[in-house]
């Protein structure tokens, strides 16, 4: 059981972005991926989820043994893969509650529906944990939300859908320190021995709150260095240039 990425190559027309990426996330682990702008961090999250703009030219991604690269976007989600978006989309006219219900219902056999009472109870409890006002249930998904509200909403979806593997793409961007703490608390509450996390971030700050087990440095489409959480502190201090040199030297 793991999310296993093997020798992954992916491109947009005319430009290869991921150039043989290897990474294995076991349930219970929190991996952080750090790297400079343009290193392929966000591409990795979109490729894993099956975004149509990217073409996988070789490699495999196995979710608990199953190659998900053959699967449609929605099937990957239902298989247990979740992405907290860097820029969550607005869905005008669709309430947060209806959206979550539809997403949960999509996981049930055709014709079955979720228990509405239980659903609201769970949702309210999780919203409380994220310090989200109840009015967010009836507001349109992300419409008119501040940056911080959008990120909290992503974590609410994570908490409701309870995926096996969750990718957080720059969840700290646009958050003030208070919001960062709340969001991190939500993520930490979801940490479990049955769930793996991949935390993509540009800055070390987030990792003070969501402490990773393993830190990777992504550069030019490949993981060039892997270490413990102390690596993130070193990166914060020294930047990314020395990592490249080391990789080349090795």
């Amino acid at each position, binding site marked *: 059981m793991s999310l296993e990425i093997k020798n992954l190559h992916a491109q947009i027309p005319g430009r290869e972005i991921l150039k043989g990426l290897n990474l294995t996330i076991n349930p219970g682990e929190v991996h952080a991926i750090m790297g400079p702008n343009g290193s392929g961090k966000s591409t990795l999250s979109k490729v894993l989820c099956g975004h149509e703009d990217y073409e996988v030219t070789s490699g495999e991604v196995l979710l608990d043994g199953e190659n998900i690269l053959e699967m449609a976007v*929605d099937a990957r*989600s239902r298989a247990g893969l979740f992405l907290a978006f860097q820029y969550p989309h607005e*869905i005008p006219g669709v309430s947060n509650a209806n959206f979550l219900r539809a997403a949960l219902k*999509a996981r049930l056999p055709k014709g079955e529906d979720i228990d509405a009472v239980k659903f609201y109870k769970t949702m309210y409890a999780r919203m409380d944990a994220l310090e989200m006002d109840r009015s967010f249930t009836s507001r349109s998904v992300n419409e008119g939300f501040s940056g911080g509200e959008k990120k909290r909403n992503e974590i609410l979806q994570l908490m409701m859908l309870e995926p096996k593997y969750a990718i957080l793409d720059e969840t700290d961007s646009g958050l003030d320190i208070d919001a960062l703490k709340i969001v991190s608390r939500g993520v930490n509450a979801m940490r479990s021995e049955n769930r793996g996390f991949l935390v993509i971030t540009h800055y070390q700050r987030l990792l003070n709150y969501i402490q990773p087990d393993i830190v990777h440095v992504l550069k030019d489409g490949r993981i060039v260095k892997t270490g413990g959480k102390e690596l993130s502190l070193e990166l914060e201090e020294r930047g990314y240039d020395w990592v490249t040199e080391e990789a080349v030297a090795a």
Partner: protein
Amino acid sequence: MVSAPETHDLPHPSEASDISDIRVDSVGDFTFPERNKFDSGFGITSKTVDYIADVKGDPDWIREFRHKALKIFQDKPMPTHWATKDLENIKFDEFRYYLSDGQKPKRSWDDVPEDVKKTFDRLGIPEQERKFLAGVEAQYDSEAAYSNIKAAVSEQGVIFVNSTEGLHKHPEIFRKWFGKVIPTGDNKFSALNSAVFSGGSFIYVPPGVKVSHPLQAYFRINSEQFGQFERTLIIADEGSEVMYMEGCTAPKFETSTLHSAVVELVAMKGAKIQYVTVQNWSSNVFNLVTKRGIAHEDAVVKWIDCNIGSRLTMKYPGVIMKGKRARGEVISIALANSGQHQDTGAKMVHAADDTTSNVISKSISIGEGRSTYRGLVHIPKHLKGCKNNTECDALLINSNSHTDTYPAISVRGNQHSTQHEASVSQVSSDQIFYLMQRGLSEAEAMSLSVNGFINDLAKEFPMEYSVELKRLIDLEMEGSVG
């Protein structure tokens, strides 16, 4: 007057009315074998008009009215100079203009012929009637098969019958208003309807009566190469209120089907009429409908219109605000899928001081579908204090979907206020990606986006109809993605 000839050459397959003998593809796409006692035959001439007048036992003034209308229909050119050229593909000689089994509408579903009853059962009409309606009329091809009004409502003096019964039994009200809101010569298709009309509702609500539940009519086309021409006239007397709802379906045939209704509403002083349509025509139907209401002093006429399906729909519900402080509203939703053109809009004619009109239109174009908004707002110079608000929003689902907007707002004088807003948006592939990443299929993601787009308007529909609307949109989206 000659007695109506029985039709020949038509089979009488009454034994074939079992559900297993019919084609079933989707909600409305099924048909039973024809067993028409009366069939006007193909094409339209003065003989067709006489045939219909004979079968229906029309009084002379209606027969004359029909003949005059036929002449106008024949003389008027197709309005292709402003509308789509697709109108030229209508072959008037290939339709039958009147089909009926010769039976009077029944007051009880138990008395309705088995195949017709099964049709309306499948469409959920008797169930809706039990649940939330004050009265139902169910029309099958040219005539009503079932018509009933709840006793409590009829005891208040409310009349709800088909147009034939209306003109025979209530001539004093019928004749006063019939053809007055929409003159025969308004357009080629109102003339066609006036020549061959059959079926539709006649409603009269006495002064001060507020009908608590909606009255509903359902128009079902069963036969191939047929035209349905119902005629509806609703009069809400002073201070009264009524909501009327109509639904329509037809099976999908290889050949085209024509539906051309005329609907006239009269809201007397302080009255309120709400007219709700949810149509779901199959994609071979030419749907060319003229709808207009007159609102007298302090009266409200509100059209809530949802157009799904058909090959071509041309429909611009209108309100003539004739009395001071009258209000006209058109709330419309149109959904055009590939091979469909929804050419819809509104006409608001301000004819008194301090009148208010509101037009909110949302259209959705899917695949190669095309939706067109055409609006007319007229405020003349001699009036004061008139207000109009027009909003039209279009949503495009695919890059080859098509939308056009033709608003014509003529405001003279400087004591009025108008505002017009239009927007075009597209469901982006990133939005669909976001929804699919949460586990929704592509069709579910599209459906949710479309339902979100019309959400604020769907709230205007009675709850039962907004549920139906959502279901119809889900079906359309399911069929439109690979």
